[in-house]
């Protein structure tokens, strides 16, 4: 029996119990507690032997099951006066209630999934209408929504594709854009002149990092006009022969 325990991913101890109950074709309201406890413990052992992380909740349930099992074995001592209320109550009652309740929501979840789910079964228009009177702005959005959008994108990516860059301070990125702007109006900038204007140490570091990043992505070029001469920064030039193939820049 135990060797054939299917290794599904169980959502939790209640899920595992429901699975065992279904497998044994018994009723939730009349659980053969000894059998189910044995199989439950065997499953936990199997999970552990496979180095699956068995969460604490599974162990708590194991203890509960063992406790119920032991209470079931006790004779219903002197139950005459107490009636069903205390000693005579089925020790499984609370567990049964929890199982039934959980099962109910499990079914509800399945029903939800069977509905026409947006962006899986049905779709709405995603384009902002093209026929607005004038291209007005967008409705106000909070930066948190923007960040949430980014996080959504990152979560869809395979884990190793999420660069540590996403956590970096945005300042370097901003500086990169500003540097490119500067180079648009002034074709060449002298390195020393650029850094002389910076006031704080932080600014120097950020500017330098931005510069390196731009060199790496081949958007700018850093060179000396002659050996020992000033260091110059300019926008990278198109590779030979490429220039004529592309249209002029907008604006």
């Amino acid at each position: 029996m135990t060797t054939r325990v299917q290794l599904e991913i169980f959502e939790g101890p209640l899920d595992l119990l429901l699975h065992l109950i279904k497998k044994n074709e018994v009723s939730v309201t009349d659980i053969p507690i000894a059998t189910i406890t044995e199989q439950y413990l065997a499953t936990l052992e199997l999970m552990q032997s496979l180095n699956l992380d068995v969460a604490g909740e599974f162990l708590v349930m194991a203890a509960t099951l063992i406790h119920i099992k032991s209470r079931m074995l006790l004779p219903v001592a002197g139950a005459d006066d107490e009636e069903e209320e205390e000693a005579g109550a089925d020790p499984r009652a609370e567990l049964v209630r929890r199982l039934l309740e959980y099962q109910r929501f499990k079914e509800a979840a399945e029903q939800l999934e069977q509905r026409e789910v947006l962006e899986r079964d049905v779709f709405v228009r995603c384009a902002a209408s093209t026929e607005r009177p004038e291209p007005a702005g967008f409705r106000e959005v909070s930066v948190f929504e923007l960040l949430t959008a980014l996080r959504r994108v990152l979560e869809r990516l395979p884990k190793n594709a999420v660069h540590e860059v996403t956590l970096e301070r945005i300042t370097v990125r901003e500086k990169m854009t500003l540097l490119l702007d500067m180079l648009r109006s002034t074709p060449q900038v002298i390195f020393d002149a650029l850094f002389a204007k910076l006031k704080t140490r932080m600014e120097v570091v950020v500017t330098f990092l931005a510069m390196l990043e731009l060199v790496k992505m081949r958007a700018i070029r850093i060179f000396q006009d002659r050996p020992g001469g000033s260091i110059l920064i300019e926008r990278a030039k198109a590779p030979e022969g490429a220039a004529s193939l592309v249209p002029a820049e907008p604006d």
Partner: protein
Amino acid sequence: MEREELKSILESLLFVADGPLTLQRISDVVDGVERSELRAALEELQSELERRAAGIRLMEVAGGYQMRTAKRNAEWVKKLLGGRPPRMSRATLETLAIIAYRQPITKAEIETIRGVDVDGVIGTLLERNLIRAVARKEVPGRPFLYGTTQEFLQLFNLKDLSQLPTLKEMEELAPPVVESEQARLEGED
């Protein structure tokens, strides 16, 4: 206004709307037309689209009307739009179902029902705007009480929460504790 003309206008409005349009909103725009007339025209439009097995359907969701693609064309639409929709895990769906039926509800209460920790799942649901914190429960720690959003209704093509299928024997099995809590909360907010 002729019925056909009205339907044409409604089609245009529903096409450009960026979310479900309530009857109220439609009625504000197409003024001078009785609501009953509007409703009749919307229903006619709806059934015509069904009958033609059109690629666009008119659905009642989240308290309003919205145009959506026909379900049977889903594969093609997905191919055009690319990207995989975020698949909802069983844990997410179960937690969402519990919140939907038992709202407002705290994280701890959800955990009691599911028997496991739901921290991560709650975060995902909040981020996807499917649930929101509606209040705090006045117990030690003042935990958030969660409820579902308009986006939830839209996601599952529900007109309102009453469209959720009823849970079997819910009332009989709900522990009295939960009910009295509910009563206390209602008195509060």
